[in-house]
């Protein structure tokens, strides 16, 4: 009887604080933002210069948040099942690099590979100016904690399991290319991606949580890659016309 009381008290405390436990654990690690530039290098004239005159992205949350989506409990006399589903939103605090700097660095690197122009810091001397304004930028995922307990007379056995889901990220920004005051083109770029989670067979729960965070950052990185490749292609098409 004493065991049962302890067990239910433990269960209650654990379920109340599951989102805090996960958040504390996620806050201990930082995920990298990067990707492999796999587009074939282009050999073209890069004398045209472009400067980024404006880059605004305040869409990515400052901190990572965890909130409870739902909780399912099957409390039977001999069998007890509890499932907590948590929604996690990736924040800047969980990235080991500033997202905006990552974007600019990736744009610069990609432009050196496939762009028929070169990026410059000098706004006044550049042939074109580029404005980028984000209106959506997020990565989120679902995390599940499950426990099952079976009671046989005075004994009980319990299993506990955590698992991550594939991360979903979405980016939407508008880009405007100008020559002086003339608008050359304006376009909205949208990318969304469900990034498969590598595995759920983890022995170390901290590694699972860390990889869960990395999965969201990976999704965001690869979405950025897709958008940057399209943007450079469009700039190439427009500056040469």
């Amino acid at each position: 009887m004493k065991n049962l009381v302890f067990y239910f008290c433990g269960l209650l405390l654990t379920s109340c604080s599951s989102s805090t436990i996960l958040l504390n654990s996620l806050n201990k690690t930082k995920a990298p933002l990067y990707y492999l530039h796999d587009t074939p290098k282009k050999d073209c004239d890069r004398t045209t210069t472009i400067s980024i005159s404006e880059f605004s992205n305040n869409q990515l949350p400052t901190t990572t948040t965890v909130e409870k989506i739902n909780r399912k409990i099957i409390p039977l006399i001999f069998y007890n099942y509890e499932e907590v589903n948590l929604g996690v939103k990736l924040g800047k605090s969980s990235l080991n690099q500033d997202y905006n700097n990552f974007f600019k660095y990736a744009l610069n690197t990609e432009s050196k590979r496939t762009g028929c122009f070169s990026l410059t810091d000098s706004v006044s001397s550049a042939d074109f100016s580029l404005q980028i304004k984000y209106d959506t930028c997020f990565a989120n995922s679902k995390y599940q904690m499950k426990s099952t307990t079976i009671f046989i007379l005075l004994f009980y056995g319990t299993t506990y399991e955590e698992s991550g889901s594939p991360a979903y990220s979405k980016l939407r920004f508008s880009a405007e290319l100008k020559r002086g005051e003339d608008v050359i083109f304006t376009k909205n770029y949208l990318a969304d991606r469900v990034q498969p989670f590598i595995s759920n067979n983890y022995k170390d729960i901290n590694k699972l949580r860390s990889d869960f965070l990395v999965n969201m950052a990976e999704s965001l990185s690869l979405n950025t890659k897709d958008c940057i490749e399209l943007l450079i292609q469009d700039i190439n098409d427009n500056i040469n016309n």
Partner: protein
Amino acid sequence: MKRAIFILFFLSFSCVPTEYKYFVRTYNELQNINWERNILNYLPLSDDIVYESTVIRRTVSLLQTQSFSKLKVYLSQQQEKDSDFYFAQTLYLMAKADYSNAWLSLEAVDKNKYEPIQSLISIDLTYELNKKRGFNDYVRILDSYQTLLDNYPNDNALRNIIALRTRYIRYN
């Protein structure tokens, strides 16, 4: 009784399997790989490399069946210690996760004889050895993979393999 428990305890630890991280595959085999939900590190071997040397062919065949003890004996019986032998030994040591000795063995292989896999293994070993020393300079490693990829722009299998290496580093 105490001794029996001690032996069982010892055996339970000694039977923990080695975590194999690098897998030798020929280019033909790589065509059937699912690259999406994957984090394995493949070591790609062209037919030219595999079929021109008996020691490499035998090594690849034994690695694919994970017959490590047979392979160890086979390599120890080799009289001729040429580039083929050292390269085969590197593959064996990579598969066994013995990165320090794999590095020494790779050093003994003639430069540029088995490209691009030789460069790929060199970067892999730099990463693994750095990680072992608690030093994870993934930016420099990624730059090296990027350079290798750019040197072989038409090698699709290599591109997929390097993309997986990027994933592997990301999750480690």
